[in-house]
């Protein structure tokens, strides 16, 4: 039997290259579009550009996306699979938080 004692960094790299990450990314992008649509509708209602970057509103939207994504991961028990690989939920969700602000910022810059 192969000896364990693995590095978390290696496990993280394998996760990012796996189809499991890609399907999680697809779920996140759908959530991001939904949240962005809601934010944009709110901005338009207030008379602003729908793509304006509002830090507080973006943070709330990001929290909504992460909580929902965590629910998608935990409900079928996939957090146990990721735990067995050596990855905790917080480290799994971190790149999606970064991606949220990158996408929101990029969109605001493009809309100027």
């Amino acid at each position, binding site marked *: 039997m192969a000896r*364990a*004692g693995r*590095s978390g960094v290696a496990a993280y790299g394998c996760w990012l290259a*796996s*189809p499991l990450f890609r399907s999680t990314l697809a779920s996140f992008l759908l959530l991001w579009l939904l949240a962005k649509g809601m934010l944009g509708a709110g901005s338009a209602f207030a008379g602003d550009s729908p793509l304006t970057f509002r830090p507080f509103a973006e943070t709330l939207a990001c929290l909504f996306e992460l909580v929902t994504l965590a629910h998608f991961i935990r409900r079928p028990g*996939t957090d146990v699979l990721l*735990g*067995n*690989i050596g990855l905790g939920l917080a480290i799994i969700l971190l790149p999606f938080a970064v991606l949220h602000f990158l996408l929101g910022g990029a969109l605001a810059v493009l809309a100027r």
Partner: protein
Amino acid sequence: MSATARIAAEAVDLSRGGRAILRQAYVDAVPGTITALVGRIGAGKTSLLRVLAGRMRPDRGQVRWEGERLRRPSLEALARAGLALLPDHAWLAPQHTLGVQLALAARVSGGDWRAAVARVGATRVDRRPGDLSTGERRLGELALAVSLGATALVLDEPFRELDPMHRDRLGACLRDLADDGCAVLFADHDVESVLARADRLFAIEEGATRVVPDFRERPVVDWYVGWGRGG
């Protein structure tokens, strides 16, 4: 703690909603042996396994890995050391085939998932977990633990709802892994499997554990799982 234990939970107290679930509970897993944990439904077996595997934080107590006390035990930290947890509920990603998940595990550990599949006797790795029978899924989960190169296995009710063929296959696999130096710990109600597979036995009653030194007589195990007293 046993001097040779690979993983151990010691003096664990756990309460929820004002009710004590675990009282100074102890359990461990020793390399090269299969340890069983038995008790009535609600006795605290699953809670103790969850504490041991870093999935639940106790009020008091500690988890040790190869004698070293862990400050903040978590499944991911223990898994990187060599633990694999196989809980009683489904835990494989439902939208991906078993093969995809085995390949991920093998890439993480640098192992060979096809060798793990052959060793365990898992089949239909091209299917999603939801398309597998309970026995096929359980063997697939074990193949994933083998792909990860786990040196300690914690299984919650692994024999539940298995047909005789898969029960025998799973039991033989656990023996094979233990013979290879793996520390195996499982909790189950299946008295036949406990008698046939276990080298050591812990019993848990109302959250308190005890070692059962002489458990080869069926009525002894029956008593602890509750069958011998109308449970």
